[in-house]
């Protein structure tokens, strides 16, 4: 049984703004019956009031969280200009509902995409820009552009997370190496210019700090976050790195082992062999 929040249950059992708008200014449509969920979003703009969204309605085929996400979205956009509405992320939709189970995050992504599709429709584009790109996941028809985007926007680091957020890789699994390739490419691209020429013999304090920060972001935090934990860099004094753990790492009795093995090893590998890691209790 899914662990839905009370708010998800409420928005599923009593969905707000179900229906159609006959003279809608914008209609967005995403999903397909083969995929198991689909959403049609209608927006009506108030021309006298700075083109703010005066009414929003939806129709959804899908599970409890798909219906709840769509309904939440209609409430969130009400009264906003299209420019303001455009800033809503899938995480905002999930947050509005008090969170979604990880496997159901794709429902919030569907909401976000329906909104983009509606805005594109209003502005006269044929389709939202996400429709472009080459198909990576053949089972669900998901493109590299879309995968790259959910990876970047939600800071995803594993194939499983990508599947949860956009379904890619949830069918025959043959595209898993390609998805991993996209994840690697996204995160490599952003850190490579500074990270690759690692381990210079003598480095300035500024350079050392920079490398420590990058290594933590790239190689350490994603690993901790996979187990529901996280860490902060508190200070660097000479060759001693002070860190503090959060989430499950903080409560975990084995965190000192993690601290020594993962954090120190990674920092020594990418920054300098002389580093020592100390834990600070915050």
């Amino acid at each position, binding site marked *: 049984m899914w662990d839905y929040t009370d708010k998800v249950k409420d928005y*599923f*059992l009593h*969905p707000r703004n*179900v229906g159609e708008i006959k003279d809608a200014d914008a209609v967005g*449509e995403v999903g397909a*019956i*083969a995929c*198991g*969920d*689909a*959403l*049609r979003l209608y927006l009506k703009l108030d021309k006298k009031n700075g083109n703010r969204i005066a009414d929003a309605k939806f*129709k*959804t*085929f*899908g*599970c*409890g969280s*798909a*219906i709840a996400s769509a309904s939440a979205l209609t409430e969130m956009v009400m009264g906003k200009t299209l420019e303001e509405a455009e800033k809503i992320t899938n995480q905002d939709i999930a947050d509005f509902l008090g969170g979604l189970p990880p*496997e159901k995050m794709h429902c919030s992504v569907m909401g976000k995409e329906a909104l983009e599709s509606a805005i594109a429709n209003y502005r006269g584009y044929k389709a939202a820009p996400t429709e472009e790109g080459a198909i990576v996941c053949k*089972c*669900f028809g998901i493109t590299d552009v879309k995968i790259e985007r959910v990876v970047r926007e939600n800071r995803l680091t594993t194939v499983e997370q990508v*599947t949860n957020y956009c*379904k890619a890789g*949830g*069918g025959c699994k043959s595209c898993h190496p390609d998805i991993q390739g996209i994840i690697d490419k996204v995160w490599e691209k952003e850190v490579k210019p500074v990270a690759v020429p690692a381990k210079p013999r003598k480095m300035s304090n500024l350079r050392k700090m920079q490398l420590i920060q990058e290594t933590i972001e790239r190689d350490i935090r994603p690993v901790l976050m996979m187990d529901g934990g996280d860490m902060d860099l508190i200070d660097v004094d000479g060759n001693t790195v002070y860190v503090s753990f959060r989430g499950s790492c903080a409560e975990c009795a084995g965190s000192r082992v993690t601290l020594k093995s993962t954090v120190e090893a990674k920092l020594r590998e990418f920054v300098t062999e002389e580093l020592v890691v100390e834990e600070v209790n915050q």
Partner: protein
Amino acid sequence: MKKLVYVDNNATTRVAPEALEAMLPYFTELYGNPSSMHTFGGQLYKKINQAREQVASLIGASPQEIIFTSGGTESDNAAIRGTLEANPDKKHIITTRVEHPAVLNLCQYLAQNGYEVTELGVDSQGLLDLDELHGAIRDDTVLITIMYANNETGVIFPVEEIGQIAREKGITFHCDAIQAVGKLPLDMGKSTMDMISLSGHKLHAPKGVGALYIRKGVRFKPFMLGGHHENNRRAGTENVPSIIGLGMACELARKYLPEEQTKVRKLRDKLENLVLNQMLNSRLNGHKILRLPNTTNISFEYVEGEAILLLLNEVGICASSGSACTSGSLEPSHVLRAMGVPFTAAHGSIRFSLSRYNTEEEVNYIVGHIPPIIRRLKEISPYSAEIEELELKAAARK
């Protein structure tokens, strides 16, 4: 208490009150170890063998052919791995695409670890083609493992014919009979099956106990190694209370077996016919005749299964679905996909599985609640036009 109508008996069943009653002393005063030398523990050995007789009697086996396990999954693992280990020279296994994950995932694991696996397909009714089985058999085929009745659709396979084919070729035949035991009469004395798995909690015994039938003379090596329990075929101190419960549940199943074909079947048919007649966008998944008496799997086209389940749950009805959203795998049930059920229907499939504890009043309650639930989801759906078209066509056919 909130109303509860439990029609998810292929998932698990309530423990029969008589079985619970029989178990209780073994949690309290009779806590000994059956392997002990003293009478306090040793007397339980006899009780376990009585339970073994009760299980054997339900399936027409001799008690020496029964070993107790921790449940259906262990029985399947023990049968399959035990057969392979006893016949190390042969490396080919035949199974089907619609097995329970306990068999399917094990076979897929074996396929990556030195074995070749042939998965037989099924037709749109969920039936096997025995010619395909004939064609799949090779000189190095060591094991055929095929279920008796499908847990999702209830469709029954011709296991005696399969056993006959296996016997002629000298291949061991293991049958996952977990959904069949207690619902269909079995007589291992006359059967062609070499091994069958059964699970306690599918027949009103508690969870965490099951049994494996191994025909006398069939080559088998134990899966669990350790002490000398179960005649050296399954190590581990016996789960005495649960084994006593399983024995009692099997005795009750034998007593109530005729009710499955009369009372339970009648209730299932009533539920199925009323739902299919009332809801014009519904269809039956699986062969109408070759089926367990307690199971019906109905698809509501263009309506999503998890949403139906959640609304059924609101009125206290417990069922299950083959929809992608409930499986956690994003794709609808592997059984419905193997049958080629269209996506429009697979995502909206609901399984109702009854037991002898269900009543006519409960069936009427379910039948009364389905139309408003489907109507409500239809109103939310962007496919309402498609549903209406489908309903018009169905109405014209009637």
